[in-house]
């Protein structure tokens, strides 16, 4: 059996699945049950500074985007950081850590941008025996208007400064949680690295309005006729998160900086993908909020079985393996020529490939009726290999892309297919091409 024990910036956990800082980790009761269900670690719901606790709205906090069958694809929230007293949270953290020494327990923090404020809270967290801290520079609503959360995360200089304070005032590992509400994720990541961060975690939620109530013309969730933007998460944000993780993993200035992957992770496969792009572990929020803590059992068994099947003895064996294969468009091989192939044995005759190609792509699928059955066939002269037919086909494996072998002729271009690599950098149509040697 594959060994899926995690060691993230020195923090050990029996598996790489942690719960992200959010409602699932807001109190002792939840965290104990999460550990019993098998979660490897948690990042405790973000704590604020000493003082009167934060208040939340008393109306609905969530908005949602559904897929078919009311599957939650995206979740939006206007919740703030923990609204429970600091002392209560600290006491509970200490008790849980004492009872679950083998699990990772990291505490998320968000206090005003003053060194003393950070110094104070770090000392108190250290006392609990927690394994590390995560700096919440990501929350896009409520706290940002008060100069915290994404208001810090959007200014690289602030990130660097606060990270440095934390490193100077604590011996705990410091993970900097990044906001995706920024144009280029590499800048905040570089700032965190410069400030001495042990790792970055990403993504926090994406600023969003999920829907509008058409009776009272208010954004959802509606609080007394008004709504404000919230933070979006769940399966819908996974592609955004994966790209940002990859950008940091392959940026020469941050390459090697440990990354905790977050954003839409719902199955073992999602987790493996984040790790293939360089993440040392993953954090989950929406999947647990949708299906309960038990989902981790599927993640654990699925990841182990996949690792066994592929011969990866431990997480390190595949971590980052996809990073070298993330490149820029201009380096993609233009001599890689493929054509769509439709397997008539698997075809259920829905015609979706035809509609997609005929109406919106390259008119490269022919439809005819043969012995009362609809037959769909790819016209190689027209097929540009865009892959849309594969994407819209409801039957997995029915339409596949087949590579034309070197020496054959691409009926669309009339050109002989070459197996030499040739990309845009050397293409004759590129005015800035580099001359081939």
């Amino acid at each position: 059996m594959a060994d899926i024990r995690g060691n993230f910036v020195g923090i050990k956990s029996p598996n790489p699945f942690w719960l992200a800082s959010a409602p699932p980790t807001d109190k002792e009761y939840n965290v104990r049950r999460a550990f019993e269900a098998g979660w490897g670690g948690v990042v405790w719901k973000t704590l604020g500074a000493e003082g009167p606790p934060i208040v939340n709205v008393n109306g609905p906090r969530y908005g949602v985007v559904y897929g078919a069958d009311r599957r939650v694809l995206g979740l939006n929230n206007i919740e703030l950081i923990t609204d429970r007293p600091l002392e209560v949270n600290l006491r509970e953290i200490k008790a849980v850590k004492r009872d679950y020494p083998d699990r990772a327990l990291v505490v998320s923090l968000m206090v005003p941008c003053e060194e003393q404020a950070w110094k104070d809270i770090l000392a108190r967290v250290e006392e609990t025996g927690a394994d590390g801290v995560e700096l919440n520079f990501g929350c896009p609503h409520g706290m940002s208007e008060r100069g915290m959360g994404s208001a810090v995360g959007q200014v690289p200089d602030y990130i660097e400064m606060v990270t440095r304070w934390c490193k100077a005032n604590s011996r705990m590992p410091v993970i900097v949680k990044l906001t995706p509400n920024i144009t280029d994720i590499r800048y905040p990541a570089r700032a965190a690295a410069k400030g001495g961060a042990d790792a970055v975690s990403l993504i926090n939620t994406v600023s969003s309005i999920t829907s509008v109530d058409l009776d009272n013309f208010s954004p959802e969730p509606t609080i007394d006729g008004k709504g404000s933007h919230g933070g979006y998460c769940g399966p819908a944000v996974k592609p955004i998160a994966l790209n940002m993780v990859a950008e940091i993993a392959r940026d020469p200035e941050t390459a090697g900086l440990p990354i905790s992957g977050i954003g839409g992770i719902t199955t073992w496969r999602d987790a493996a993908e984040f790790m293939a792009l360089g993440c040392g572990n993953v954090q989950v929020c929406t999947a647990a909020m949708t299906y309960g803590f038990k989902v981790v059992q599927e993640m654990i068994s699925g990841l182990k079985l996949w690792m066994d099947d592929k011969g990866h003895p431990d997480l390190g064996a595949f971590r980052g393996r996809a990073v070298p294969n993330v490149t820029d468009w201009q380096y993609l091989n233009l001599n890689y020529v493929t054509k769509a192939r439709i397997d008539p044995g698997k075809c259920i005759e829905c015609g979706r490939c035809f509609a997609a190609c005929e109406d919106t792509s390259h008119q490269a699928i022919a439809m005819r009726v043969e012995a009362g059955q609809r037959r769909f066939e790819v016209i190689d002269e027209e097929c540009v290999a865009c892959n849309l037919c594969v994407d819209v086909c409801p039957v997995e494996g029915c339409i596949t892309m087949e590579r034309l072998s070197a020496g054959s002729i691409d009926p669309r271009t009339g050109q002989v297919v070459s197996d030499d690599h040739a990309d845009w950098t050397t293409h004759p149509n590129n005015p800035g091409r580099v001359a081939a040697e």
Partner: protein
Amino acid sequence: MDGARHQAGIAAGRISAEEAAQNFADLHPPLDGHEAAVAADRCYFCHDAPCVAACPTGIDIPLFIRQIATGQPRAAAQTIFESNILGGMCARVCPTETLCEEACVRMTAEEKPVEIGRLQRYATDAQMATGRHPFTRAAQTGKRVAVVGAGPAGLACAHRLAMHGHDVVVMDARPKGGGLNEYGIAAYKTTGGFAQAELDWLLQIGGIELRTGTALGREVTLDALEADHDAVFLGIGLGAVNALACEGGDLPGVEDAVDFIARLRQAEDLPTLPVGRRVVVIGGGMTAVDAAVQSRLLGAEEVTIVYRRAKAAMSASLYEQDLAAARGVGLRYNARPVRVIGTGRAEAVEFEYTVDGPDGLTGTGETFRLAADQVLRAIGQALETGPLAGLELDGRKIAVDAEGRTSRAGVWAGGDCTAGGDDLTVTAVAQGRDAAESIHRALMEG
């Protein structure tokens, strides 16, 4: 061949080899990958799911379906086998329409449950196709347990005991192991020699010795077993059949449905198996339905099930009754046999109509006759108590407590032979497994 088709009496060759292959093909064919993905996607991953509560072995159904949905059917199989080592057979034979699928919340929502049974088969087939056994034994304890009966109860018990490191000897009176999986279940539910394949796969755990042709009360006695072993488990099923007390009940052409079915299950070549042109099945349970349907599939022209009470009282589920009707079996209710008529062999059965009133079942005096050259009795099986001397009974079955302990210390029992169950494969598995846990606790305390 066509001449034989309508031959009177009990005769072979009513169907061709192609018809036999078609008729006895899988009742619920396996799902392919695409079908499984679509079916799995319908599961809501309910919390504390009602389907789990409805499964006698308590398989974590939402978890295994999610494992299928996320592309790991072998992880799903592991989840299933942890609760039910005969999950492959159960996926084929469980009356899911009265168990997990009846409880599915999508039954309430759309009257269309998640296809749990077929998904279970999809997962277990994936694991069994690897040929590998998914469990290993704990360190050997040196304890020896005797299991009598290699049916679902005995096998589930033996497997769990072997997993805990005990050495197990399984004895069965019949020439092959498997119990009714091998000799009773309808052929179209477990095709392709699955019962023996599953048995071989199960025994791969190691530590289990199977001794067939060894009967309690014949080759061995309970006293001797107790003396030689640290514990004994009885999973002997129901070996006797209830007698049909009516005139002519012993005429040639009249036999027990279970014998007919056992012969059918063991037949190498189904078209050579003799079956009546007109078959009457007496009874109202799963055995009656299976005997009737399989007679039809063997080419019997007219097959009628006659049940003494009303339709609703029939223990075969509505689904089973519909299945029989769809295969061309006639179903008659509220009629009881008075006598079998015939000179030298059965030719017809006379029935009397009944009413089910406050005084129980009473005859109306009005009768009718059904022509029959084969009469199959399916009026229930009974426990053979002979070899059990000394064991306390509860009604006509072995009395056990919640853990499967009998009245005699050191002797456990489970499955059809014990009181309180519902005579299903899956219940036998659950009871065998639970008794094994109880035995394990008892052995490790001492």
